[in-house]
């Protein structure tokens, strides 16, 4: 019931326990696709249930906002704001989308809605996106949205069994307000 409506086809809904089966099925269907870049993507049904539980706990305290991307009434992926740093007033954004729904701008549109939320409602000063070097589809999103590439942290990430470099993209509240 409670959702962030983006357009006729697309909405963001909080992950709740009753969505656990659908979320797990989506991960299961996309496992090979996700494992390339997501270290958590080997999770079983119980891990997914625990993720939803702890995400809701974090929502309760404002530490993170994990939402499902729902396209034409079905769960299509996931996007979230996490790693809230209250002292520096910043968070990080992460996302993934089902392989068969790539290329429709679903993540870009969802990101825009979360950027509005992050800066207008949570009133963050800064939002980061971390992308592993080589994950070009993911990097295209902050590029398209006008994030600034600020640097590459060497060996910072862990993907598919090895350390990878992470590109740090940043967007400031002032920049997002200007770009709108």
């Amino acid at each position, binding site marked *: 019931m409670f959702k962030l409506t983006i357009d006729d086809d697309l909405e963001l809904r909080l992950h709740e326990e009753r969505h656990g089966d659908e979320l797990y099925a989506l991960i299961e269907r996309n496992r090979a696709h996700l494992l390339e870049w997501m270290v958590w993507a080997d999770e079983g049904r119980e891990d997914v249930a625990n993720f939803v539980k702890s995400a809701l706990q974090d929502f309760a305290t404002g530490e993170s906002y994990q939402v499902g991307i729902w396209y034409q009434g079905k769960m299509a992926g996931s996007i979230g704001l996490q790693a809230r740093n209250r002292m520096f007033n910043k968070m990080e954004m992460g996302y993934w989308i089902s392989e068969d729904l790539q290329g429709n701008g679903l993540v870009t549109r969802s990101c825009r809605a979360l950027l509005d939320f992050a800066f207008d409602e*949570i009133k963050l000063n800064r939002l980061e996106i971390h992308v592993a070097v080589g994950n070009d589809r993911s990097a295209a999103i902050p590029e398209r949205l006008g994030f600034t590439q600020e640097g590459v942290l060497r060996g910072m990430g862990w993907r598919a069994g090895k350390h990878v470099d992470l590109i740090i993209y940043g967007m400031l509240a002032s920049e997002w307000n200007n770009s709108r």
Partner: protein
Amino acid sequence: MFRFTIDDDLELRLLEERHAEEYFALIDRNREHLRTWLVWVYEVDTVDAQRKRINESLQRFADGEGVPAGIWFQGDLAGEISFTQINMDHRNAYIEYWLSADRQGNGLVTRSCRAMLDYAFDELGLHRVELDAAPDNLKSRAIAERLGFRQEGTLREVGWRYDHYGDLVVYSMLAREWRELRRTAK
């Protein structure tokens, strides 16, 4: 962030910590009006106290035991409508609400209640929603009766009201009754 739009003027939003100031201000403006029926109003003596209440409600939301929602009318917080004590073993819950005095008489709670009942029966999969009201809280009872809740009884001296035990009239709506009411309303 998370909202359910009822019409151009009215929407329900999941209450979050950052709403604490607006919520506190509304309670503060309505203290006299609310204290008759809502014993917890005195606990909301600071914004921090309200922030703590919202945090506790969201914990219950995270545990699947409640859904705290604010009623927003023309962009301003006007009251609250929430499910409390959701019990998924028995698939039942309580619905509770209050509205700012200056917003009464516009059907805001009735419309909000309808949306919450759809949510309870269509999405949460509940079987029964209970609504309790003090016998002399006629405005609250009128909502239950307008929506077609069935009055099941009066529990004697079940709630503490400052200096005495008060009775509560129990109303409930079952999933099949709500579906039938919706069907015949069409």
